[in-house]
Protein backbone atom coordinates (compact mmCIF):
# COMPACT_ATOMS: atom_id res chain seq x y z
CA UNK A 1 0.00 0.00 0.00
CA UNK A 2 1.25 3.47 -0.87
CA UNK A 3 0.47 5.78 2.04
CA UNK A 4 -1.72 8.63 0.83
CA UNK A 5 -0.28 12.09 1.52
CA UNK A 6 -1.19 15.68 0.66
CA UNK A 7 1.24 15.40 -2.26
CA UNK A 8 0.15 12.14 -3.84
CA UNK A 9 -3.65 12.32 -3.52
CA UNK A 10 -5.52 13.95 -6.36
CA UNK A 11 -5.86 17.72 -6.52
CA UNK A 12 -9.38 17.18 -7.74
CA UNK A 13 -12.14 18.06 -5.32
CA UNK A 14 -15.21 15.82 -5.38
CA UNK A 15 -17.17 17.43 -2.54
CA UNK A 16 -17.04 21.15 -3.09
CA UNK A 17 -19.30 24.17 -2.77
CA UNK A 18 -21.40 22.36 -0.18
CA UNK A 19 -23.58 24.10 2.39
CA UNK A 20 -22.23 22.51 5.58
CA UNK A 21 -21.75 24.90 8.49
CA UNK A 22 -18.30 26.51 8.66
CA UNK A 23 -15.86 24.11 10.32
CA UNK A 24 -18.01 20.99 9.84
CA UNK A 25 -16.12 17.77 10.61
CA UNK A 26 -18.46 15.56 8.58
CA UNK A 27 -17.81 17.50 5.40
CA UNK A 28 -14.05 17.07 5.92
CA UNK A 29 -14.52 13.30 6.33
CA UNK A 30 -16.46 13.08 3.05
CA UNK A 31 -14.13 15.40 1.14
CA UNK A 32 -10.93 13.59 2.15
CA UNK A 33 -12.27 10.05 1.64
CA UNK A 34 -13.29 10.95 -1.91
CA UNK A 35 -9.89 12.47 -2.60
CA UNK A 36 -8.30 9.18 -1.55
CA UNK A 37 -10.77 7.05 -3.52
CA UNK A 38 -10.88 9.17 -6.68
CA UNK A 39 -13.25 9.71 -9.54
CA UNK A 40 -14.47 6.10 -9.80
CA UNK A 41 -16.02 6.24 -6.34
CA UNK A 42 -19.80 6.01 -6.36
CA UNK A 43 -21.18 7.54 -3.19
CA UNK A 44 -24.41 6.68 -1.39
CA UNK A 45 -25.65 9.05 1.31
CA UNK A 46 -28.81 8.60 3.37
CA UNK A 47 -30.84 11.42 4.87
CA UNK A 48 -28.53 13.39 7.15
CA UNK A 49 -26.38 16.49 7.10
CA UNK A 50 -24.04 15.38 4.32
CA UNK A 51 -26.81 14.71 1.84
CA UNK A 52 -28.68 17.82 2.97
CA UNK A 53 -25.65 20.06 2.39
CA UNK A 54 -24.46 18.30 -0.75
CA UNK A 55 -27.58 18.07 -2.88
CA UNK A 56 -29.51 21.34 -2.94
CA UNK A 57 -30.77 21.21 -6.47
CA UNK A 58 -29.55 22.90 -8.57
CA UNK A 59 -26.44 23.24 -6.36
CA UNK A 60 -24.96 19.72 -6.70
CA UNK A 61 -21.68 19.46 -4.83
CA UNK A 62 -20.42 15.99 -5.72
CA UNK A 63 -18.20 15.79 -8.80
CA UNK A 64 -18.37 11.99 -8.78
CA UNK A 65 -21.53 9.90 -9.06
CA UNK A 66 -23.45 10.26 -5.83
CA UNK A 67 -26.98 9.60 -4.70
CA UNK A 68 -29.30 9.80 -1.73
CA UNK A 69 -30.71 6.66 -0.15
CA UNK A 70 -33.52 6.18 2.31
CA UNK A 71 -32.48 6.87 5.88
CA UNK A 72 -32.41 3.18 6.79
CA UNK A 73 -31.08 1.89 3.49
CA UNK A 74 -27.51 3.14 2.98
CA UNK A 75 -25.93 -0.31 2.92
CA UNK A 76 -28.73 -1.97 0.93
CA UNK A 77 -28.60 0.73 -1.74
CA UNK A 78 -24.81 0.31 -1.87
CA UNK A 79 -25.35 -3.41 -2.48
CA UNK A 80 -27.74 -2.62 -5.34
CA UNK A 81 -25.40 -0.09 -6.93
CA UNK A 82 -22.49 -2.51 -6.69
CA UNK A 83 -24.49 -5.36 -8.24
CA UNK A 84 -25.73 -3.05 -10.99
CA UNK A 85 -22.26 -1.86 -11.95
CA UNK A 86 -20.95 -5.42 -11.92
CA UNK A 87 -23.83 -6.57 -14.12
CA UNK A 88 -22.99 -3.83 -16.61
CA UNK A 89 -19.43 -5.09 -16.80
CA UNK A 90 -17.93 -2.02 -15.10
CA UNK A 91 -14.55 -2.37 -13.41
CA UNK A 92 -12.36 -0.41 -11.01
CA UNK A 93 -15.12 1.35 -9.16
CA UNK A 94 -15.45 1.85 -5.43
CA UNK A 95 -18.81 1.86 -3.73
CA UNK A 96 -18.68 4.12 -0.69
CA UNK A 97 -21.40 5.02 1.78
CA UNK A 98 -21.34 8.05 4.06
CA UNK A 99 -23.91 7.76 6.81
CA UNK A 100 -24.27 9.61 10.09
CA UNK A 101 -24.28 8.07 13.54
CA UNK A 102 -28.08 7.93 13.61
CA UNK A 103 -28.20 6.52 10.08
CA UNK A 104 -25.65 3.87 11.07
CA UNK A 105 -26.08 2.79 14.68
CA UNK A 106 -29.86 3.26 14.90
CA UNK A 107 -32.03 3.04 11.81
CA UNK A 108 -29.42 1.70 9.36
CA UNK A 109 -27.84 -1.03 11.47
CA UNK A 110 -29.96 -3.82 10.00
CA UNK A 111 -29.02 -3.00 6.39
CA UNK A 112 -25.38 -2.63 7.42
CA UNK A 113 -25.39 -5.97 9.22
CA UNK A 114 -26.90 -7.64 6.15
CA UNK A 115 -24.25 -6.19 3.86
CA UNK A 116 -21.47 -7.39 6.15
CA UNK A 117 -23.08 -10.83 6.22
CA UNK A 118 -23.13 -10.93 2.38
CA UNK A 119 -19.58 -9.55 2.37
CA UNK A 120 -20.34 -7.21 -0.53
CA UNK A 121 -17.30 -5.41 -1.91
CA UNK A 122 -17.75 -1.86 -0.62
CA UNK A 123 -16.70 0.69 1.99
CA UNK A 124 -19.17 1.96 4.57
CA UNK A 125 -18.07 5.13 6.33
CA UNK A 126 -19.94 6.31 9.40
CA UNK A 127 -19.22 9.99 10.10
CA UNK A 128 -20.03 10.30 13.76
CA UNK A 129 -21.08 13.73 15.00
CA UNK A 130 -22.75 12.08 17.99
CA UNK A 131 -26.38 13.11 17.37
CA UNK A 132 -29.05 13.61 14.74
CA UNK A 133 -27.66 16.95 13.62
CA UNK A 134 -29.63 17.56 10.45
CA UNK A 135 -32.89 17.60 12.37
CA UNK A 136 -31.55 19.79 15.17
CA UNK A 137 -29.57 17.57 17.58
CA UNK A 138 -31.56 14.63 18.90
CA UNK A 139 -29.87 11.78 20.78
CA UNK A 140 -28.70 8.74 18.81
CA UNK A 141 -27.20 5.56 20.25
CA UNK A 142 -23.79 7.10 19.52
CA UNK A 143 -24.45 10.20 21.62
CA UNK A 144 -22.07 10.09 24.59
CA UNK A 145 -23.06 10.01 28.24
CA UNK A 146 -24.05 13.37 29.64
CA UNK A 147 -24.54 15.19 26.34
CA UNK A 148 -27.44 17.59 26.23
CA UNK A 149 -29.63 17.14 23.15
CA UNK A 150 -33.20 18.17 22.42
CA UNK A 151 -34.38 14.68 23.43
CA UNK A 152 -32.02 14.39 26.41
CA UNK A 153 -32.35 17.89 27.83
CA UNK A 154 -30.86 19.18 31.03
CA UNK A 155 -33.40 19.70 33.77
CA UNK A 156 -33.85 19.33 37.47
CA UNK A 157 -33.75 15.54 37.43
CA UNK A 158 -32.05 14.53 34.19
CA UNK A 159 -28.65 15.92 33.27
CA UNK A 160 -28.34 15.06 29.60
CA UNK A 161 -28.00 11.64 28.00
CA UNK A 162 -28.08 8.78 30.51
CA UNK A 163 -26.73 6.06 28.21
CA UNK A 164 -23.26 5.65 26.74
CA UNK A 165 -22.00 5.30 23.19
CA UNK A 166 -22.89 2.05 21.43
CA UNK A 167 -19.70 0.19 20.53
CA UNK A 168 -20.28 0.05 16.75
CA UNK A 169 -16.66 -0.78 15.95
CA UNK A 170 -16.72 -4.00 17.95
CA UNK A 171 -20.28 -4.83 16.88
CA UNK A 172 -19.15 -4.65 13.24
CA UNK A 173 -15.98 -6.60 14.00
CA UNK A 174 -18.01 -9.32 15.73
CA UNK A 175 -19.54 -10.08 12.31
CA UNK A 176 -16.08 -11.19 11.20
CA UNK A 177 -15.81 -8.35 8.65
CA UNK A 178 -12.59 -8.32 6.55
CA UNK A 179 -11.64 -4.81 7.70
CA UNK A 180 -12.94 -2.27 10.21
CA UNK A 181 -11.35 0.81 11.70
CA UNK A 182 -12.00 3.79 13.89
CA UNK A 183 -10.63 7.13 12.73
CA UNK A 184 -10.79 10.83 13.52
CA UNK A 185 -10.86 13.86 11.22
CA UNK A 186 -8.35 15.41 13.62
CA UNK A 187 -5.81 12.76 12.60
CA UNK A 188 -6.37 13.07 8.91
CA UNK A 189 -3.33 11.14 7.64
CA UNK A 190 -4.34 8.12 9.73
CA UNK A 191 -7.87 8.36 8.31
CA UNK A 192 -6.53 8.63 4.75
CA UNK A 193 -4.37 5.55 5.30
CA UNK A 194 -7.38 3.58 6.57
CA UNK A 195 -9.54 4.62 3.60
CA UNK A 196 -6.77 3.59 1.20
CA UNK A 197 -6.26 0.30 2.99
CA UNK A 198 -10.02 -0.40 2.88
CA UNK A 199 -10.04 0.32 -0.87
CA UNK A 200 -7.42 -2.38 -1.43
CA UNK A 201 -9.22 -5.12 0.47
CA UNK A 202 -11.99 -7.13 -1.18
CA UNK A 203 -15.27 -7.60 0.64
CA UNK A 204 -17.02 -5.39 3.15
CA UNK A 205 -15.14 -2.63 4.98
CA UNK A 206 -16.32 -0.31 7.76
CA UNK A 207 -14.67 2.93 8.90
CA UNK A 208 -16.09 4.86 11.82
CA UNK A 209 -14.73 8.39 11.79
CA UNK A 210 -15.32 10.88 14.59
CA UNK A 211 -16.40 14.16 12.97
CA UNK A 212 -17.14 16.99 15.39
CA UNK A 213 -20.07 19.28 14.68
CA UNK A 214 -19.40 22.82 15.95
CA UNK A 215 -23.12 23.63 15.77
CA UNK A 216 -24.33 20.66 17.82
CA UNK A 217 -21.40 20.39 20.20
CA UNK A 218 -21.24 24.06 21.05
CA UNK A 219 -17.67 24.82 20.03
CA UNK A 220 -16.32 27.50 17.70
CA UNK A 221 -15.75 26.46 14.07
CA UNK A 222 -12.00 27.07 14.33
CA UNK A 223 -11.85 24.69 17.32
CA UNK A 224 -13.21 21.70 15.43
CA UNK A 225 -9.87 19.97 14.81
CA UNK A 226 -8.60 20.75 18.31
CA UNK A 227 -11.62 19.04 19.88
CA UNK A 228 -11.43 16.13 17.47
CA UNK A 229 -7.82 15.51 18.54
CA UNK A 230 -8.64 15.94 22.21
CA UNK A 231 -11.32 13.21 21.97
CA UNK A 232 -8.66 10.69 20.95
CA UNK A 233 -5.86 12.07 23.11
CA UNK A 234 -7.95 11.92 26.31
CA UNK A 235 -8.87 8.30 25.58
CA UNK A 236 -12.57 8.70 24.76
CA UNK A 237 -12.15 7.85 21.07
CA UNK A 238 -9.41 5.20 20.63
CA UNK A 239 -8.10 4.79 17.09
CA UNK A 240 -7.81 1.17 16.04
CA UNK A 241 -8.11 -1.37 13.25
CA UNK A 242 -9.70 -4.79 13.05
CA UNK A 243 -7.94 -6.76 10.39
CA UNK A 244 -7.50 -10.47 9.84
CA UNK A 245 -9.46 -11.22 12.98
CA UNK A 246 -7.24 -9.10 15.20
CA UNK A 247 -7.67 -5.76 16.97
CA UNK A 248 -4.77 -3.36 16.73
CA UNK A 249 -4.54 0.04 18.41
CA UNK A 250 -3.33 2.75 16.01
CA UNK A 251 -1.95 5.04 18.71
CA UNK A 252 -1.82 5.07 22.48
CA UNK A 253 -3.76 7.39 24.78
CA UNK A 254 -2.19 10.84 24.80
CA UNK A 255 -2.90 12.62 28.06
CA UNK A 256 -5.78 11.27 30.19
CA UNK A 257 -5.91 14.49 32.20
CA UNK A 258 -7.22 16.58 29.27
CA UNK A 259 -10.58 14.78 29.43
CA UNK A 260 -11.79 17.56 31.74
CA UNK A 261 -10.86 20.28 29.24
CA UNK A 262 -12.49 18.29 26.47
CA UNK A 263 -15.76 18.08 28.42
CA UNK A 264 -15.74 21.54 29.95
CA UNK A 265 -15.07 23.30 26.64
CA UNK A 266 -18.25 22.07 24.94
CA UNK A 267 -21.65 23.61 25.49
CA UNK A 268 -23.39 20.21 25.30
CA UNK A 269 -21.47 19.04 28.40
CA UNK A 270 -21.22 22.29 30.34
CA UNK A 271 -23.80 21.26 32.96
CA UNK A 272 -21.87 18.15 34.04
CA UNK A 273 -20.70 18.01 37.65
CA UNK A 274 -17.30 16.79 38.81
CA UNK A 275 -18.99 13.57 39.80
CA UNK A 276 -20.40 13.14 36.26
CA UNK A 277 -16.97 13.74 34.78
CA UNK A 278 -15.53 11.21 37.23
CA UNK A 279 -18.06 8.71 35.90
CA UNK A 280 -16.95 9.39 32.32
CA UNK A 281 -13.32 8.91 33.40
CA UNK A 282 -14.05 5.59 35.05
CA UNK A 283 -15.91 4.32 31.95
CA UNK A 284 -12.93 5.35 29.85
CA UNK A 285 -10.48 3.61 32.19
CA UNK A 286 -12.51 0.39 32.13
CA UNK A 287 -12.50 0.48 28.32
CA UNK A 288 -8.73 0.96 28.19
CA UNK A 289 -8.18 -1.85 30.61
CA UNK A 290 -9.99 -4.16 28.20
CA UNK A 291 -8.07 -2.75 25.24
CA UNK A 292 -4.75 -3.27 26.99
CA UNK A 293 -5.67 -6.85 27.77
CA UNK A 294 -6.77 -7.99 24.34
CA UNK A 295 -5.71 -5.65 21.52
CA UNK A 296 -2.32 -5.36 19.90
CA UNK A 297 -0.73 -2.14 21.05
CA UNK A 298 1.90 -0.26 19.00
CA UNK A 299 5.38 -0.98 20.27
CA UNK A 300 4.25 -4.13 22.04
CA UNK A 301 4.37 -7.56 20.37
CA UNK A 302 1.76 -9.28 22.47
CA UNK A 303 -1.29 -7.97 24.26
Amino acid at each position, binding site marked *: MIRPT*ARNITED*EYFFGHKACAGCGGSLAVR*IALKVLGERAVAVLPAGCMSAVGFNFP*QLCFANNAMISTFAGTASMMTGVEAGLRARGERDYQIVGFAGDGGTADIGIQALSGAIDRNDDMIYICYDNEAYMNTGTQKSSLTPFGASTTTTPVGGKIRGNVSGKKNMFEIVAAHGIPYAATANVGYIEDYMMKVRKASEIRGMKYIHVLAPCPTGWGIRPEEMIEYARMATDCGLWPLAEYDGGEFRLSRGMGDPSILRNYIKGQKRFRHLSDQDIGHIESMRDARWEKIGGSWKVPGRDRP
Partner: protein
Amino acid sequence: MSALRPCLRSTVPEWKNGEFPDSTAYEAGYLVHRNSGWRNRRPVIEPELCTGCLQCYLYCPDGTILKKDGKVSVDYDFCKGCGICAGICVHGAIRMEAERQ
Protein backbone atom coordinates in the same frame (compact mmCIF):
# COMPACT_ATOMS: atom_id res chain seq x y z
CA MET B 1 -4.19 22.35 -15.22
CA SER B 2 -7.17 23.22 -13.16
CA ALA B 3 -8.46 20.46 -10.94
CA LEU B 4 -11.75 18.67 -11.45
CA ARG B 5 -14.27 20.06 -9.04
CA PRO B 6 -17.86 21.13 -9.03
CA CYS B 7 -17.79 24.49 -10.81
CA LEU B 8 -19.99 27.56 -11.09
CA ARG B 9 -22.25 27.53 -14.14
CA SER B 10 -23.39 30.57 -16.02
CA THR B 11 -26.93 29.28 -16.37
CA VAL B 12 -29.21 28.32 -13.56
CA PRO B 13 -31.54 25.56 -14.71
CA GLU B 14 -35.09 26.83 -14.74
CA TRP B 15 -38.32 25.01 -15.26
CA LYS B 16 -41.81 26.25 -15.61
CA ASN B 17 -44.58 24.55 -13.66
CA GLY B 18 -44.94 20.94 -14.68
CA GLU B 19 -41.68 20.94 -16.59
CA PHE B 20 -39.37 19.50 -13.97
CA PRO B 21 -36.83 16.97 -15.24
CA ASP B 22 -38.43 13.57 -15.61
CA SER B 23 -36.08 11.95 -13.13
CA THR B 24 -34.36 13.22 -10.03
CA ALA B 25 -30.93 12.68 -11.61
CA TYR B 26 -28.84 15.63 -12.76
CA GLU B 27 -25.31 16.54 -13.85
CA ALA B 28 -22.69 16.08 -11.12
CA GLY B 29 -20.79 19.06 -9.79
CA TYR B 30 -23.25 21.73 -10.86
CA LEU B 31 -22.86 24.87 -8.76
CA VAL B 32 -25.01 27.96 -9.04
CA HIS B 33 -23.89 30.02 -6.06
CA ARG B 34 -20.76 30.88 -4.13
CA ASN B 35 -20.31 30.52 -0.37
CA SER B 36 -18.27 33.69 0.13
CA GLY B 37 -21.24 35.56 1.61
CA TRP B 38 -21.14 33.32 4.69
CA ARG B 39 -17.82 34.72 5.77
CA ASN B 40 -17.17 37.50 8.27
CA ARG B 41 -13.43 36.80 8.47
CA ARG B 42 -11.03 35.72 5.78
CA PRO B 43 -7.78 33.76 5.95
CA VAL B 44 -4.81 35.62 4.54
CA ILE B 45 -1.67 33.68 3.60
CA GLU B 46 1.74 35.16 4.30
CA PRO B 47 3.80 33.59 1.49
CA GLU B 48 7.17 34.35 3.18
CA LEU B 49 6.18 32.26 6.19
CA CYS B 50 4.54 29.42 4.25
CA THR B 51 6.70 26.30 3.98
CA GLY B 52 4.29 24.47 1.67
CA CYS B 53 3.68 21.72 4.25
CA LEU B 54 0.05 21.45 2.97
CA GLN B 55 -1.49 20.77 6.39
CA CYS B 56 -4.03 23.55 5.78
CA TYR B 57 -4.83 21.97 2.42
CA LEU B 58 -5.62 18.64 4.06
CA TYR B 59 -7.71 19.99 6.93
CA CYS B 60 -9.87 22.59 5.14
CA PRO B 61 -13.42 21.14 5.24
CA ASP B 62 -14.36 23.06 2.11
CA GLY B 63 -11.36 22.26 -0.09
CA THR B 64 -10.71 25.94 -0.62
CA ILE B 65 -6.97 25.91 -0.01
CA LEU B 66 -5.28 25.62 -3.39
CA LYS B 67 -1.76 24.42 -4.10
CA LYS B 68 0.19 27.19 -5.79
CA ASP B 69 3.88 27.26 -6.76
CA GLY B 70 4.93 25.02 -3.87
CA LYS B 71 2.85 27.12 -1.45
CA VAL B 72 -0.88 27.71 -1.05
CA SER B 73 -3.58 30.24 -1.85
CA VAL B 74 -7.27 30.57 -0.93
CA ASP B 75 -10.34 30.25 -3.13
CA TYR B 76 -12.30 33.19 -1.73
CA ASP B 77 -15.40 32.31 -3.75
CA PHE B 78 -16.04 29.26 -1.57
CA CYS B 79 -14.03 29.75 1.66
CA LYS B 80 -16.41 30.10 4.63
CA GLY B 81 -13.87 31.72 6.95
CA CYS B 82 -14.03 28.94 9.55
CA GLY B 83 -10.43 29.57 10.65
CA ILE B 84 -9.40 25.92 10.77
CA CYS B 85 -6.50 26.54 8.37
CA ALA B 86 -5.15 29.34 10.57
CA GLY B 87 -5.24 27.06 13.63
CA ILE B 88 -3.57 24.18 11.78
CA CYS B 89 -0.64 26.19 10.41
CA VAL B 90 2.18 25.79 12.92
CA HIS B 91 4.27 28.26 10.93
CA GLY B 92 1.92 31.14 11.61
CA ALA B 93 1.54 31.74 7.89
CA ILE B 94 -2.25 32.22 7.98
CA ARG B 95 -3.99 35.04 9.81
CA MET B 96 -7.69 35.73 9.97
CA GLU B 97 -8.75 39.26 9.03
CA ALA B 98 -12.14 40.85 9.40
CA GLU B 99 -14.03 40.77 6.12
CA ARG B 100 -14.36 44.35 4.85
CA GLN B 101 -17.48 45.21 2.95
